[in-house]
């Protein structure tokens, strides 16, 4: 049988003991792992040079897109 009262006590102690730093670190670490799974392994580079990509993946994106493609019309339509 699940002891709900005991679990409640443990949860209260756990949450009470979390600090801003410990909880933020846990959450961001969780999100960073998920981000890595999404993007693949790569290198984050600084933003000092505005022309630099912030994430450099090791494999090239592969999609076909017309050289004349523009999303301006679509965006304008949405704005309207």
């Amino acid at each position, binding site marked *: 049988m699940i002891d709900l009262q005991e*679990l409640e006590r443990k949860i209260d102690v756990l949450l009470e003991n*979390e600090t801003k730093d410990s909880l933020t670190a*846990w959450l961001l670490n969780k999100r960073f792992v998920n981000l890595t799974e999404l993007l693949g392994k790569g290198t984050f580079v600084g933003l000092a040079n505005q022309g630099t990509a912030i994430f450099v993946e090791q494999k090239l994106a592969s999609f076909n897109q017309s050289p004349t493609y523009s999303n301006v019309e679509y965006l304008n339509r949405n704005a309207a």
Partner: protein
Amino acid sequence: MIFKEIVTVKNYQKIFKMVLNFYHTQEHRGKYLENPIICRRDNAWLGEAYYFWESEDDAHFWGVKMKHRTGKYDVYKAEVSMADVLDTVFNREQYNFWLKHIEKAAKVFIKKTNLKPSLKEINDYFIDKGIWTKFDGILFQDISNNPVHFIVKEFQYKKRIQLALFDVNKMCNFAPHFSMEC
């Protein structure tokens, strides 16, 4: 003397908690699985776990909808004892407990981090911290979007029940149940 214990309302669940059949759907990849596959997807709302459907219909629909990449999917059947599963679908006390602590954790996350956690993150947090692992899994429900279930007009009344099992050793007799081309 053989049956000394009197069955009261309190110990009824302890004695008679059922072993239920659950269904696990995966793409067919040439050979059958010996164990279910853990789900780590971002939309795995009960956290990282082995996900099962309570209904064969939902397992089949999941195969058609989400597990069709190889052109065939497999539905496996397993038996799970409900004795140590947090049942938020049919047990009011356990549902209220789950709801109270998900919301309590969400408020603490928001207050201390200024970030809004997802349901998966809260469940993962309780798993990581060894709270949810005090039981075998969570039974939860949402509403099916399977059009076959829309028998009455404009209202989907049927629960879509899922089991998130945290420890694969808590199930038994995992075996292929049926396969379908899609």
